[in-house]
C-alpha cells in the first residue's frame, strides 16, 4: 500500500493542527457555527441526531494492521467501543466529543490516516474495487490511480467549495465492475482502447439520491499521462456551471442532464485543451513512484488446498463459508476471504474495538497484514492461502465474524437511518436486523442465491436502495415511519435503477412484503440457477405487484 513520504505526513499533521485551531476559535466565539460548519465537514465531522459523528477516510478501502489497531484504540478511548463501516469504504464513529476530535486526528495522523474531505462540498474519498490488486478478472490494479487522484484532490484549493459533494470511483476490472462507477459523479474504468493502448474510460454524471442517474461516457479514452488534467477540466466546468440555487439540483448529474452529454463533453474538451500540457501532465516517473508502492507482496508457496473436502466436511458452517465467502485470486493457491459484518443480532457494518483487534491479528497471521473495506460494508482479507481457510474461519467465528452470508439476502447494505442520522425519515437498522432474524436459515439463503437487499432511511440513498435487487426506502408518513419497496436495481456493468412497486408499506408489514417478493421469485424462476435479477428482468414488476397488493 502507499507509504507516506515526509510531505504526505506533514500534510495530515498540519491539517490536524489547523482543525485544532478551528475548534478553539469555535469555542472562544471568534468563529460562529455557520462559519465553522463547512470547516468541520471538510474534516468529516457531522452533527447527527444524538451526537457528533466523525467519518475517517480509508482511501480505496485499504488498511494495514497498524491502522486497524489504531482505529480500535480510537473507538475505545474516544467513543463507545465500536465503529461503523460505510458504503464508501470509510469508517465512522458515532459519539466523539468536539474537543477530542483534534486529538483523534493527531492519533490518526500517526498511522497515516485522516478525516480529510470525507464530507462537505468537495471531492470525497475515491473508492474502488475491494478486490483491487488480487482479482482474477482485473485488467490492471486501479489503486495507484486512486492514490494519484487522492493526492490531486486533497486540499485542491480551487475545488473546496463546489456546488455539492463530489464522488469518484475507479475500477480496474472492466468486465466486472465492483466499484459501482456508473453511479458516481466521475467513474473511471481502466481499459484497452481499439488500438490496444491502456488508459481510462471516463464516465460522468452518475448518482443516487433524490434523482438517480446512470453515468454517461464523457471520454472513451484518456491516456495515463492525461488522467489528472482531464479530471481537472471536468471539475472546472462543474465548479463554474453547476447549479448553486438549489441544494437538490446541484450535483454534476443535473448539469450533465441539462446540457446533454455531448455539450458537456465538449465543454470539458475545450477546457482540457488549455491544461492538457500543464504541470498536471503525469510523468512516467510519478506514475511509477506510486505504482511501485502497490507491487504484489511476496506470495509464499501455497500447498495443496482441501477446499473441496471442506465443502463436504462435517463442519457445515465452514462448508457454507467456503461456498459463499471466498473470491477467486490471481495467485494460484490463494483466495480473498470476505468477512461478513452482517451477523444476526447486530447492526450491519458495525464492528467493536475487540473485533478490530482480532481482525488485525488474523490479518497479520494469514493475510500479509492488510484488510480492505468493501462498499457493501464488509471486509476482505485479500491474501489468504487456501490451505489456511479453515483456520481463518475458526478464528473469525470466535469473534462473530464468520457469518457465511456474503452476497446473499442477509448481506444487506444499510444506512444508519433514523436511529442515528439527522437526515433520515425512518429507521433502517432494525429492519435489516429483523430481516436477518427472519431469514437466517443458510440453506434457504443459498437456495435464494445471490440477492442484494439495500436499505436507505431517506431519499439521500446512502443505503443504495436504487441499485438493489430489492431496495427499501424509509419515508415519513405524517410523522410515522413507512417503507417503499423497489425492485430490479443493479450497480454494476448491467446498471439499472430500481422501480417502486406501489404504495409504501407500514413498518409492521414491510418484512412480510419482502417475504412475498421472495415467494414470487421462487415460484417463477425458470430454474434453481436463475438468479433473482434475471427472473425479475424476465417477468417484470407485474407479478410482484400483484402478489404484494392482492388485498388492495
Amino acid at each position: 500500500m502507499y507509504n507516506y513520504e515526509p510531505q504526505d505526513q506533514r500534510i495530515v499533521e498540519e491539517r490536524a493542527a489547523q482543525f485544532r485551531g478551528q475548534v478553539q476559535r469555535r469555542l472562544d466565539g471568534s468563529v460562529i457555527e455557520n462559519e465553522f460548519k463547512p470547516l468541520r465537514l471538510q474534516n468529516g465531522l457531522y452533527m447527527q441526531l444524538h451526537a457528533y459523528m466523525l467519518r475517517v477516510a480509508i482511501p480505496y478501502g485499504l488498511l494495514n494492521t497498524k491502522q486497524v489497531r489504531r482505529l480500535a484504540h480510537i473507538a475505545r478511548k474516544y467513543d463507545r467501543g465500536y465503529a461503523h463501516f460505510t458504503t464508501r469504504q470509510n469508517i465512522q464513529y458515532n459519539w466523539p466529543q468536539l474537543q477530542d476530535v483534534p486529538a483523534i486526528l493527531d492519533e490518526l495522523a500517526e498511522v497515516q490516516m485522516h478525516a480529510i474531505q470525507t464530507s462537505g462540498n468537495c471531492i470525497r474519498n475515491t473508492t474502488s474495487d475491494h478486490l483491487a490488486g488480487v482479482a482474477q478478472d482485473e485488467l490492471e490494479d486501479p489503486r495507484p490511480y486512486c492514490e494519484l487522484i487522492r493526492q490531486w484532490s486533497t486540499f485542491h484549493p480551487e475545488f473546496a467549495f463546489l456546488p455539492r459533494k463530489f464522488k469518484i470511483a475507479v475500477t480496474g476490472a472492466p468486465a466486472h465492475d465492483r466499484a459501482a462507477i456508473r453511479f458516481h459523479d466521475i467513474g473511471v474504468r481502466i481499459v484497452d482502447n481499439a488500438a490496444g493502448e491502456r488508459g481510462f474510460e471516463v464516465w460522468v454524471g452518475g448518482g443516487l439520491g433524490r434523482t438517480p442517474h446512470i453515468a454517461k461516457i464523457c471520454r472513451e479514452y484518456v491516456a495515463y499521462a492525461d488522467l489528472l488534467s482531464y479530471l481537472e477540466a471536468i471539475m472546472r466546468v462543474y465548479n463554474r456551471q453547476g447549479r448553486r440555487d438549489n441544494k437538490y439540483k446541484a450535483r454534476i448529474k443535473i448539469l450533465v442532464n441539462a446540457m446533454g452529454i455531448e455539450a458537456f463533453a465538449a465543454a470539458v474538451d475545450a477546457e482540457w485543451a488549455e491544461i492538457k500540457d500543464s504541470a498536471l501532465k503525469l510523468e512516467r516517473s510519478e506514475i511509477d513512484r506510486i505504482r511501485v508502492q502497490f507491487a504484489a507482496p511476496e506470495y509464499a508457496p501455497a500447498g495443496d488446498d482441501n477446499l473441496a473436502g471442506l465443502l463436504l466436511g462435517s463442519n457445515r458452517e465452514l462448508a457454507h463459508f467456503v461456498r459463499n465467502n471466498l473470491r477467486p485470486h490471481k495467485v494460484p493457491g490463494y483466495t480473498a476471504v470476505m468477512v461478513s459484518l452482517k451477523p444476526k443480532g447486530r447492526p450491519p457494518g458495525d464492528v467493536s474495538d475487540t473485533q478490530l483487534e482480532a481482525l488485525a491479528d488474523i490479518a497479520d497471521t494469514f493475510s500479509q497484514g492488510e484488510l480492505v473495506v468493501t462498499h457493501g460494508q464488509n471486509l476482505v482479507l485479500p491474501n489468504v492461502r487456501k490451505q489456511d481457510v479453515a483456520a481463518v474461519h475458526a478464528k473469525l467465528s470466535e469473534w462473530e465474524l464468520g457469518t457465511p452470508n456474503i452476497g446473499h439476502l442477509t448481506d444487506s447494505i444499510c444506512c444508519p437511518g433514523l436511529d442515528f442520522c439527522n437526515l433520515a425519515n425512518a429507521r433502517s437498522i432494525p429492519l435489516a436486523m429483523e430481516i436477518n432474524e427472519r431469514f437466517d436459515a443458510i440453506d434457504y439463503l443459498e437456495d435464494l442465491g445471490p440477492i442484494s437487499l439495500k436499505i436507505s432511511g431517506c431519499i439521500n440513498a446512502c443505503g443504495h436502495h436504487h441499485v438493489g435487487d430489492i431496495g427499501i426506502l424509509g419515508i415519513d408518513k405524517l410523522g410515522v415511519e413507512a417503507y417503499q419497496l423497489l425492485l430490479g436495481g443493479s450497480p454494476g456493468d448491467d446498471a439499472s435503477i430500481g422501480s417502486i412497486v406501489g404504495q409504501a408499506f407500514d413498518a409492521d408489514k414491510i418484512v412480510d412484503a419482502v417475504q412475498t417478493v421472495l415467494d414470487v421469485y421462487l415460484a417463477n424462476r425458470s430454474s434453481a440457477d436463475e438468479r433473482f435479477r434475471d427472473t425479475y428482468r424476465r417477468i417484470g414488476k407485474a407479478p410482484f405487484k400483484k402478489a404484494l397488493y392482492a388485498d388492495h
Partner: protein
Amino acid sequence: MQIIKDRGIVQDTWKHVEDGDPIPAQGDITVSLARWLDDKATLTAHADLIGVRLAPEDEASALTGDLDKLALVAVQFPKFTDGRGYTTARLLRERMGYRGELRAIGYVLRDQIFYLHRVGFNAFELAAGKSLTDALEGFGDFTVTYQGANPP
C-alpha cells in the same frame, strides 16, 4: 478601512462604486463588470486607478484584452461557500496572465485565506468584524501542498 495585501495589513485606498452611483473625479475606484463593459472609454480616462468587480456568475474571460488597463480585479464571495471565484482567480492569473492586484471581497474568512492565496489572490477584504491579524495566520496553515507551488 484596512485590508490584507501581499501578506501584510495595509490601509485600503480603493472605493467600490455601486452601479448607479456617480464616479468620483479622483481616487482609485472599482466598478461592476457590467458597468465596465458598458463604459470602458470613460472609465479608462479616469484620473486615478480603475478596477473591476467580478460577481460569482461573471466569467474571467469577459476581461480579455482589458487587463492591462486595470490595477485591481476584485472577485466577490457573497457566500463563502460559493466557490466559483476560486476558478475565476486561477483563470485570471494562469490563463490570462493577470499581474495586478487580485482581491477577494465579501464573506472572506481567515479559514479560506490559504486556498484563496493558492489560487492567486494577493489581497483580501475580510468579512465585517473579523480580525486581520488573526487572518494573517491563515497563510501558514500548510507548509506543503500536493498541487504544486503557489502561483507567483
